[in-house]
């Protein structure tokens, strides 16, 4: 049998073979004569999830626009495909040209979530790439990491060669140009390249930084190995989003993916300052695209896709300064073309009837609000500046519009939380039900259904709560039991997250490079897809920690001190450490911080530059 026939036999035997075929509309295949280097851009999760990621779409476009660079996509094969490949000794291939990933010059991973670490490492293994950076020779590809987890990718420091910190649109082409230049001039060696790359703004080469530890396990120093590389790596941003590259067309998957729609990026950053939220800090300063740019980009995507929906993504759509103008501009061409608009999430305080009528996703289904905490006191602690009245008013608008179902998102285990705060979650849900019953029958849906979804707080680097410890597993589970006992309304459904998943997430979110030992062990045991219920095995993880002699509570549960050197201290995300500590102190004082639109809180992100419409310091 030929190799092609073998491949056909495998594709017939796996689920959803359409995710492995490639050949989608909009994929970019450059002729070999134009290619001087190849980047394998890997998404460490399934095709269906990866294909919906906007960041990867943008960077795929940007890299392929860079002269000499061919960027090809790679996704993690699902379990059945994975085992068929291992059985037959087939290696991981790129989507565009079915090239072995290990033969590419740079293998880049976007790290979206701590629980995808094992999947990323597993994909390296499937590509026959040695796991540890120190074991890879001159012929091996350069392993590059980026995405939100790169802000503290220390648990992966021993496996990756280099991390891109911040936004990649300008940084990644620079890195590629350096690579091609050194190859052309004959000055390339892996170590010379990494040394040079470490001098570029926004790149962190973990092997060039020496970490030393105190006897109690905390870090005593982080020192660069050379004088000519920065002590602190500053993140990159794109200053003007209107001028930032954006794809004219998306790759259209054949199979159904998580989000099958056109997506425009309305803004980056968030003017709120929720103290648990990492995205709200690391994407600062706030930058917006103009309604003209957005409408043009959306129309262009529609023309090249045939999607019947345009989604506007941003951290907080209602804070966009020209929302009315934008929706009007979009609807002008979208309505006649039968294209609907959708929004990702709405803030309770700004949710109005007018906006609801314009947006199809809101029109179609139920509606979701995120009060995050059950009492005003705790909402002040986390700086979620919405009041109970805001929520009730928004709920009333939704019910009056005929909605029958409302989803409420909360977190448990937030700093300073008491039983009263947890009971407040049940109270709020009951009051939302009461709002429904206060309306005349003719003005409301026939039934009401409130879903309360409670996740476990995970302290994240570069937030005001980065020094905090997480509740212990026992505490988290006890609180879930308590919530079950107080949520007793027949119209209210209670959903909770697996506390064990949140615990593992906290360990890696706050972890340092000593955790590489446990990751390597897990990958050796064949672990991947930790974020999937069918693969997640908490007890096995605890056994591994024990085997390598690491106490996970040192990372997840320990309260760090003000002056402690944090594992991610070599990274500068724009928002200063002093600001974050100030925010932490205000949290414990139950004091709120106004949004950037009202008053500057001096976070420091304005130093990054950018078109700072919101930042009063720049006005």
């Amino acid at each position, binding site marked *: 049998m030929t190799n092609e026939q073998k491949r*056909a036999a495998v594709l017939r035997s796996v689920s959803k073979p359409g995710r492995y075929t490639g*050949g989608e*509309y909009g994929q970019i295949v450059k002729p070999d004569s134009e290619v001087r280097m190849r980047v394998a851009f890997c998404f460490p999760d399934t095709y269906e999830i990866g294909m919906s990621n906007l960041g990867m779409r943008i960077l795929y476009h940007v890299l392929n626009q860079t002269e000499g660079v061919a960027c090809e996509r790679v996704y993690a094969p699902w379990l059945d495909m994975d085992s068929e490949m291992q059985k037959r000794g087939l290696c991981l291939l790129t989507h565009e040209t079915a090239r072995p990933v290990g033969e590419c010059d740079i293998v880049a991973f976007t790290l979206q979530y701590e629980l995808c670490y094992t999947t990323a490492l597993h994909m390296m293994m499937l590509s026959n790439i040695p796991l540890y950076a120190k074991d890879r020779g001159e012929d091996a590809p350069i392993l590059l990491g980026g995405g939100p987890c790169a802000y503290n990718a220390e648990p992966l420091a021993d496996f990756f060669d280099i991390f891109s910190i911040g936004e990649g649109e300008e940084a990644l082409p620079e890195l590629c140009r350096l690579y091609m230049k050194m190859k052309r001039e004959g000055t390339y060696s892996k170590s010379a390249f990494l040394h040079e790359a470490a001098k570029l703004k926004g790149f962190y080469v973990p092997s060039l930084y020496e970490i030393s530890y105190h006897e109690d396990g905390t870090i005593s120093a982080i020192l660069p190995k050379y004088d000519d590389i920065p002590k602190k790596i500053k993140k990159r941003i794109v200053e003007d989003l209107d001028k930032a590259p954006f794809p004219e067309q998306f790759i259209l998957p*054949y199979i159904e993916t998580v989000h099958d729609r056109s997506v425009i990026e309305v803004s980056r950053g968030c003017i709120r300052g929720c103290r648990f939220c990492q995205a709200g800090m690391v994407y600062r300063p706030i930058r917006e695209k103009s309604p003209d740019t957005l409408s043009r980009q959306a129309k262009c995507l529609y023309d090249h*896709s045939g999607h019947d929906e345009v989604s506007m993504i941003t951290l907080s759509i209602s804070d966009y300064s020209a929302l009315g103008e934008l929706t009007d501009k979009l609807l002008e061409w979208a309505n006649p073309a*039968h294209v609907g608009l959708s929004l990702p999430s709405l803030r309770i305080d700004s949710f109005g009837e007018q906006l609801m009528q314009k947006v199809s996703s809101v029109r179609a289904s139920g509606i979701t609000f995120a009060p995050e905490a059950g009492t005003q006191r705790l909402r002040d602690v986390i700086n979620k500046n919405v009041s109970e009245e805001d929520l009730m008013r928004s709920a009333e608008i939704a019910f009056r519009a005929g909605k029958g179902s409302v989803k409420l998102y909360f977190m448990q285990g937030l700093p300073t939380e008491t039983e009263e705060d947890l009971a407040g979650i049940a109270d709020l849900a009951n009051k939302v039900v009461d709002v429904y019953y206060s309306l005349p029958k003719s003005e409301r849906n026939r039934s009401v259904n409130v879903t309360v979804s409670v996740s476990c707080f995970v302290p994240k680097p570069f937030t005001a709560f980065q020094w905090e410890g997480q509740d212990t597993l026992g505490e988290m589970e006890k609180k879930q039991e308590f919530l079950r006992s107080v949520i007793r309304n027949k119209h209210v459904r209670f959903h909770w997250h697996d506390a064990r998943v949140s615990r593992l997430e906290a360990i890696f979110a706050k972890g340092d490079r000593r955790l590489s030992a446990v990751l390597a062990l897990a990958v050796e045991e064949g672990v991947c897809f930790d974020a999937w219920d069918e693969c997640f095995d908490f007890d096995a993880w605890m056994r591994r920690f024990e085997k390598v002699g690491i106490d996970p509570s040192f990372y997840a549960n320990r309260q760090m001190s003000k002056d402690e050197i944090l594992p991610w201290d070599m990274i500068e995300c724009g928002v200063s450490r002093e600001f974050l500590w100030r925010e932490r102190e205000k949290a414990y004082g139950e004091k709120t911080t106004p949004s950037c639109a009202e008053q500057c809180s001096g976070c420091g992100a304005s130093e990054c530059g950018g078109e700072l419409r919101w930042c009063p310091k720049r006005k």
Partner: protein
Amino acid sequence: MVPQAQVNQNGPAVFFPMRFRLRKDGLLQYISHLDFVRTMTKALVRSKLPLWFTQGFNPIPKITFAAPLSVGMESDCELMDVRLCEPTSPDVALKALRAVMPDAHLEVLDAYIPENKLSSIGYLAYDLCIAYDGISSAHAEEAERYLSSPSIVIEKTGKSGKPREVDLKPMIASATLKWDEEKEEIVGRWVLSASPDAFLNPDLLLGALRTHTPLMQCEGDVWYSLRRVEIYAPDLTVFR
């Protein structure tokens, strides 16, 4: 040929039918029918052809496909009917749709004004090709002998969950299996019923052969290809 306008039974809106014939093969044989439908719907929207939208609360373009193709089957004759709201020449339609197709393995072969309803298809012709370790001419002979027996009864699980016996033989217009000495493959041409009340999926027939003859019985991977090559009316003339 000038397209004839037709009147929609549910409303006053006039539309003009157009039929496309497509080829779907190579790696794209692994795209399911539902995904194929989604892909073609998007392509039609991109083509900017004057699509006729359904008149309901949630307007969608009206697109109809003939007999769904199984995953892992190739075809030279996928038929897709589209309603347009303006008279459009087949040449223009063909050109517009070709310009927005995703991949060479999904090709628009033809566009024309339909002559018969998709529900009046009679037969589909398939070419097949089989290879595996231990394949031999004896396997081909035995399988062909089985195909020519007076009845081919298999057990099928009905919608109620109860198994029932079905005779496939009346649904076979013709079926061959020959040994290709040079390639060491078994090749065949099957013409099977494809009418709405008696649709015979060739996979079902392959399953019967696997159960009752030595065909495709081996330890390792079995490779086979199945390709729809033509569509016939009930009288075995080419369907248009």
